[in-house]
């Protein structure tokens, strides 16, 4: 048996097809979810993909957070449903207060697209179990609002609890505090990050590396072994 992993399409979502492809490449069953449906089609985990949901005109993720599908996801995430937010998905998770802090425009004020080096800081999450803590990976980064900010107190708490999941290496591409590229909730089921693992699952396209595949194999193993 395999796991069913849902990928949400909001109006303005761009990387849903890539995320579905990544799920398939890892060997799980991809399931498309639609923003207007509260029903999650009995998926075992959810990916919130990148893009500009509802145009992101107010703040990235601010409108999507109030969509019908998010109502269910917020409830179920609190009950343990694994959720991965990539880029816009990460922004939605902070807006929904499933993850602390917030996202602001990159400090250089430009959209940035680059191959980014990251350190996976913890393998204690549903989405990073296939990595080892400290492992360095290269995956694409592309965003306008990627600057992670939170109060000092919150940042200290995240560090103390080992909830900084990914950190930028070499270059901090957007001015994120403490080089934070991604974080996890305390239970480890909800993970958000700005860079795009789903663009790094096939050697031919994107960066030419497959460093991002581990996100999807991590969750698959966890679900199948559960």
């Amino acid at each position, binding site marked *: 048996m395999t796991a069913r992993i849902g990928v949400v399409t909001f109006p303005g979502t761009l990387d849903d097809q890539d995320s579905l492809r990544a799920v398939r490449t890892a060997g799980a069953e991809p399931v498309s979810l639609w923003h207007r449906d509260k029903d999650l089609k009995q998926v075992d985990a959810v990916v919130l993909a990148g893009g500009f949901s509802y145009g992101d005109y*107010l703040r990235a993720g601010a409108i999507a957070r109030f969509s019908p599908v998010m109502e269910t996801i917020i409830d179920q995430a609190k009950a343990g449903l694994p959720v991965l937010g990539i880029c816009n998905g990460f922004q939605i998770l902070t807006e929904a207060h499933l993850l602390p802090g*917030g996202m602001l425009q990159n400090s250089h004020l430009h959209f940035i697209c680059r191959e980014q080096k990251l350190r996976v800081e913890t393998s204690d999450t549903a989405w990073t179990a296939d990595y080892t803590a400290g492992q360095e990976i290269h995956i694409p980064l592309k965003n306008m609002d990627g600057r992670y900010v939170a109060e000092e107190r919150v940042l200290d708490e995240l560090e103390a609890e080992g909830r900084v999941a990914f950190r930028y290496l070499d270059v901090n591409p957007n001015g994120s505090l403490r080089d934070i590229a991604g974080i996890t909730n305390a239970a480890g089921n909800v993970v958000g990050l700005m860079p795009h693992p789903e663009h790094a699952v096939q050697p031919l396209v994107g960066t030419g590396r497959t460093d991002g595949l581990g996100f999807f194999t991590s969750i698959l193993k966890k679900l199948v072994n559960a």
Partner: protein
Amino acid sequence: MARVVVDVMLKPEILDPQGQAVQRALPRLGFEGIADVRQGKRFELEVDGPVDDAALARINEMAETFLANTVIEDFTVKVEEPK
């Protein structure tokens, strides 16, 4: 119809690169004497019906939950006098 304005600014302790970029450009354009610039958002809401306390309370809630992200932003709500 009445107009209510919601101004949303980054909290003072949060770096505002947009404002800084504007400030840095000013001397180059020949404008001196501006010590600081902060850039935020302004929402102009046209309200159906009277802007009474109940309406203002609703707009405050809207600003708090939606127009601003209070993790990073502050907001103010003002009724604009009809001209």
